[in-house]
């Protein structure tokens, strides 16, 4: 349920998004940080290096490495040894980690990474879209997407609570839009150290890699065992659905800040048109919805915070009574001509009694700005769908036809 947020302006400071995240990481008291700098993630690891140099992160080791592959591999060992581990990356860096992502989740190591979402080459782009994390959706990492820098910094503490829970033990990516959030300056309450010490106790793993008491992690599993490991991971993901909600509620009780659990809703109660989206664009959508509501267009927003695990039930309950659903994706599954949120939302509904028309738009690729006019146009087109039915199910929008 949507909740009232009481932002205390006297506690807010105007800082860069990357700084807010680095500060939140510090407040979570990590034991090992290992990361390789890459635009637009760089400011986060620079700020963390500065904190380390200034002695502000006690009982922590910052490991310099020569690639993202090594960064995450170092954390596999560190996390198995019982350390609370952190890294941050983006785009090609995340893709280079691909193999290690499976190792971390397969060994059930509760590593948390901030992913500063960026497009993937080629062509080279340093700007934002969601292709990098969406391409890693099957690696067994929880994926949470943030709307603003307050949410992504607070999400850091939430992610550790979710991941380190013994019923879960799955790693988390907290996703923030590159440049749009990482390089923006805006007022934020920096994650409070005193509250965080209460909210997030020290990580106490059940099994620890220790030379004095040797254990094997990520053992060989022949065909008699492998399936069961995957099954256990999926069970943990299903339990995470509730855990993500619980942790968001507990966070609200302690800090007074709430952004939704698996999802959040904005003016959906009587909405005929519901827009689904993830990340920073939901802020722009809220402004557009307010504007359209003044013109009696019954539009609402379904914000997806958790893409993994996928909140199928929550989505169904929100869109059940809508007349049309519009899904916005900053990614594409090449060869399907659909964005991932669109595809998965549709598949969620197939064997149910929910029969609402759904259309998908792929936009904002490689940093293409998503303007108010674009949101207004897709809502206009959704209004047409209510009258005429679906004509085009999934399409690119804001295409520059003159270049083709």
């Amino acid at each position: 349920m949507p909740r009232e947020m009481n932002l205390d302006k006297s506690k807010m400071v105007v800082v860069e998004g990357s700084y807010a995240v680095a500060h939140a990481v510090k407040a979570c008291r990590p034991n090992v940080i290992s990361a390789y700098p890459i635009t637009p993630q760089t400011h986060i690891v620079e700020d963390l290096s500065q904190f380390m140099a200034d002695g502000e992160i006690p009982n922590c080791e910052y490991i310099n490495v020569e690639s993202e592959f090594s960064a995450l591999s170092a954390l596999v060992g560190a996390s198995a040894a019982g350390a609370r581990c952190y890294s941050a990356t983006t785009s090609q860096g995340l893709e280079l980690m691909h193999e290690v992502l499976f190792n971390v989740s397969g060994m059930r190591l509760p590593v948390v990474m901030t992913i500063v979402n960026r497009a993937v080459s080629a062509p080279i782009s340093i700007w934002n879209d969601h292709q990098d994390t969406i391409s890693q959706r099957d690696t067994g990492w929880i994926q949470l997407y943030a709307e603003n820098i307050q949410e992504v910094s607070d999400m850091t503490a939430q992610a550790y609570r979710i991941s380190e829970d013994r019923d879960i033990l799955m790693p988390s990516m907290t996703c923030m839009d590159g440049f749009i959030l990482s390089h923006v300056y805006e007022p934020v309450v920096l994650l409070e150290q005193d509250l965080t010490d209460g909210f997030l106790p020290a990580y106490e793993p059940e099994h620890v890699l220790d030379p004095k008491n040797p254990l094997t992690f990520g053992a060989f599993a022949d065909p008699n065992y492998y399936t069961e490991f995957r099954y256990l991971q999926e069970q943990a993901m299903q339990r995470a659905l509730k855990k993500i909600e619980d942790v968001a509620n507990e966070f609200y009780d302690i800090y007074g800040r709430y952004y939704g659990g698996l999802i959040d809703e904005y003016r959906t109660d009587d909405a005929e048109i519901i827009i689904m989206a993830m990340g920073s664009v939901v802020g722009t959508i809220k402004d557009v919805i307010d504007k359209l509501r003044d013109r009696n267009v019954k539009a609402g927003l379904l914000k997806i915070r958790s893409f993994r695990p996928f909140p199928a039930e929550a989505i169904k309950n929100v869109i059940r009574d809508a007349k049309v659903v519009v899904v916005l994706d900053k990614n594409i599954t090449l060869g399907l001509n659909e964005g991932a949120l669109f595809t998965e939302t549709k598949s969620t509904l197939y064997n149910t009694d929910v029969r609402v028309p759904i259309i998908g738009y792929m936009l904002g690729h490689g940093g293409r700005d998503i303007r108010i006019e674009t949101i207004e146009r897709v809502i206009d087109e959704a209004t047409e769908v209510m009258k005429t039915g679906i004509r085009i199910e999934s399409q690119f929008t804001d295409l520059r036809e003159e270049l083709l």
Partner: protein
Amino acid sequence: MKILPGGICDAGTTRVNKTGGWRTFKPVYDYDKCIKCKLCELLCPDSAVHPRDDGYFEFDYDFCKGCGICANECPKSAITMVLEEK
């Protein structure tokens, strides 16, 4: 047996998996020729050569696969490969 999430288990579990039965020829020491040079222990790919208190070595036939590297490398030809009686 139950599996633990993450594939976590005791270390060194291959010890229960005795592989010596694979062997056709088995190495045998002639201690009169042995000069305790330790090459056999260093070169054994299965860690199946163990030192004794008296400085000589002995084979762990539970894990020796009979590859013959020790016999081949022994500078004093103190190891003979003998057909296994099975």
